[in-house]
């Protein structure tokens, strides 16, 4: 018996401190961020990130953990938003009193209620049928939102004011920085809850059903119920994200529940990596960054996002997080250091090539969209004439030379990679 307890899952044996450490780090990070990025744009971006982090994580409860591909997840997000904004208005009108910062609860609840309603028939099946039902429900809701004006406000949506109602220690959340801390608080709590959910029997069975729904039935679980539970939980958290959206923007419109938003969350989760808990977080952060920062610098940022997305699906199906996780083996063996140099040697020319390609696209775009005769443009702080011969030579050189050098470095990179990941000389096995 004593032998057995030794082999128990290490998770149970793991010291509490070690489990908590990442969470404490996360907490401190959330507190520190606004001091680092204190500009308006910085705050705005981080608020959006927070909302999308919750939203994307809730999405991954379906796709990554439960194997349900949904094209209509924005429904719960949007409904959560609408519900919250209505409650904001009730508070403003004095119909009832409730602290504004807890409003997202209502979002979560309506997400849950609709999760229960829609989940009751859509989780009956998985795979394509589920995906198509989600698509249908998504479109149906989006179209209905334009019809049921009393609740959805039609084309204009519903606006509210977040500064009314009982305040929190004199703060009425008028400023973005207040909202930041509010969102951060919610992010911390919901991320923790969603993480914990994945560690419960329901969460584990969601994985099992994703892997092999049929077998799950032969260990006592109805696959439909398992999916249903995940689906409802996911709707709940998406609703909370929607509520935060309502608080942050003080307006909720049809867009919050339409296919575009559903697509965006899928994109975020997938780019980040659906196989990892933090994948969607990474995805949401990167996507929001691209969306709000890149769009300041270039008109064609969506083109870049599209390219990034397609390349991710093609070459790193585990998502960007997957790229980091690929290094864990090397990291454990303390060999990551040996990769730095090869990475640099391949990375610098690759960067040059990418710059070249971006310059090419930007220049073409500029030539086509600017007014007749206007040829001066700037990119990354460099001013040049889009019609000049020199500019094109430079672009060409960047692409060709960069591309050639990158290619020439690849074999070395591959070798270094294999070296770093070679298992250490077979030591005595731990017995079997």
């Amino acid at each position, binding site marked *: 018996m004593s032998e*057995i307890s030794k082999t128990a899952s290490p998770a*149970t044996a793991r010291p509490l401190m070690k489990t908590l450490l990442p969470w404490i780090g996360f907490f401190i990070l959330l507190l520190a961020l606004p001091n680092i990025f204190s500009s308006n744009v910085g705050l705005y971006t981080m608020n959006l990130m927070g909302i999308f982090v919750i939203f994307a994580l809730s999405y991954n409860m379906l796709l990554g953990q439960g194997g349900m591909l949904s094209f209509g997840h924005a429904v719960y997000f949007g409904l959560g938003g609408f519900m919250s904004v209505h409650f904001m208005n009730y508070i403003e009108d004095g119909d009832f009193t409730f602290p504004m910062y807890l409003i997202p609860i209502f979002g979560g609840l309506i997400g849950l209620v609709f999760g229960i309603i829609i989940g009751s028939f859509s989780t009956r099946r998985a795979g394509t049928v589920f995906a198509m039902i989600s698509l249908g429900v998504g479109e149906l809701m989006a179209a209905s939102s334009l019809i049921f004006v009393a609740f959805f406000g039609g084309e204009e949506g519903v606006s509210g004011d977040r500064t009314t109602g009982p305040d929190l220690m004199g703060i009425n959340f008028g400023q973005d920085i207040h909202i930041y801390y509010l969102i951060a608080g919610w992010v911390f709590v919901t991320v923790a809850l969603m993480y914990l959910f994945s560690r419960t*029997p329901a969460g584990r069975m969601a*994985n099992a059903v994703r892997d092999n729904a049929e077998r799950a039935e032969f260990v006592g679980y*109805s696959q439909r119920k398992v999916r249903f539970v995940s689906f409802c939980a996911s709707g709940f958290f998406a609703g909370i994200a929607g509520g935060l959206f309502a608080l942050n923007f003080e307006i909720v419109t049809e867009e919050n529940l339409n296919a575009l938003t559903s697509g965006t969350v899928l994109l975020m989760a997938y780019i980040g990596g659906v196989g990892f808990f933090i994948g969607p977080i990474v995805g949401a952060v990167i996507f929001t960054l691209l969306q709000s920062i890149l769009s300041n610098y270039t008109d064609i940022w969506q083109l870049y996002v599209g390219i990034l997305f397609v390349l991710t699906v093609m070459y790193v199906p585990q998502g960007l997080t997957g790229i980091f996780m690929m290094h864990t083996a090397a990291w454990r063996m303390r060999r990551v250091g040996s990769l730095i140099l090869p990475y640099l040697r391949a990375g610098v020319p690759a960067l040059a090539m990418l710059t070249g390609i971006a310059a090419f696209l930007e220049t073409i775009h500029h030539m086509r969209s600017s007014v007749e005769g206007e040829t001066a443009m700037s990119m990354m702080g460099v001013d040049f004439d889009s019609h000049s011969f020199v500019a094109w030579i430079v672009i060409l050189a960047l692409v060709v030379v960069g591309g050639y050098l990158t290619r020439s470095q690849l074999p070395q990179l591959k070798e270094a990679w294999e070296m770093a990941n070679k298992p250490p000389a077979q030591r005595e096995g731990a017995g079997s």
Partner: protein
Amino acid sequence: MTAAIELQDLRKSFGPTEIIRGVNLSIADGERHAIIGPNGAGKSTLFHLISGRYNVSGGTVSLHGENISNLPPYEIYRKGLSRSFQVTNIFPNMSVFENVRCGLMWVHDYKYSFWHLIDRQKELNERTAEVIEEIGLTSRQHIPAGVLTYAEQRALEIGIAAAGGADVIMLDEPTAGMSHSETDQAIALIRKITEGRTLVMVEHDMGVVFDLADRISVLVYGEIIASDTPENIRNSKAVQEAYLGAEAEE
């Protein structure tokens, strides 16, 4: 005493063809029962009918005297019947440990709980570790099940089926595709794991069958042509003709 499993005039048709044609069989509590028969006789189908994977077209299946025909698989499992599959059927992306734990969760009464942290459930995890120990996969417990070798997967398949402590265990060709030494290990494992329970299995490897079974039923074209002790079956003319055939040659 009621039988562990009782089949009464069980029938199954796919479209116009009747595959199981009125099977009557009673398997006593604690018995190790083997079902043999030619390919396509309907052995796996019979398993599917009992375990709820297929709906029956006629007749009844009873478990400990209770009619379980046409219940969904999970209901049947909850009543104490657990099975393995002829074609390996595990959770490939989850670790071996999690695979086995999934087989234990329901019986430990966690159901669809989302308020228990699973890693904190001491008893459950200890029991999981025990089962893994029994199937000899302790050193591989954190590896995704999908990358195990074939024999290891077969062992895991049996492990998941047996983990939950169901009192009736059904194994469909547990040793298929194993080498001789692996087969021997598997027999030992099955013997150990089914100690004190009812075992129903399908096997083509006569060595295994005669080694393990208390009683053997022979299924031919959806009908049971004989159900008897191993010796009697081995000597039965009808069985030799229908199934063993050229076996004597080697």
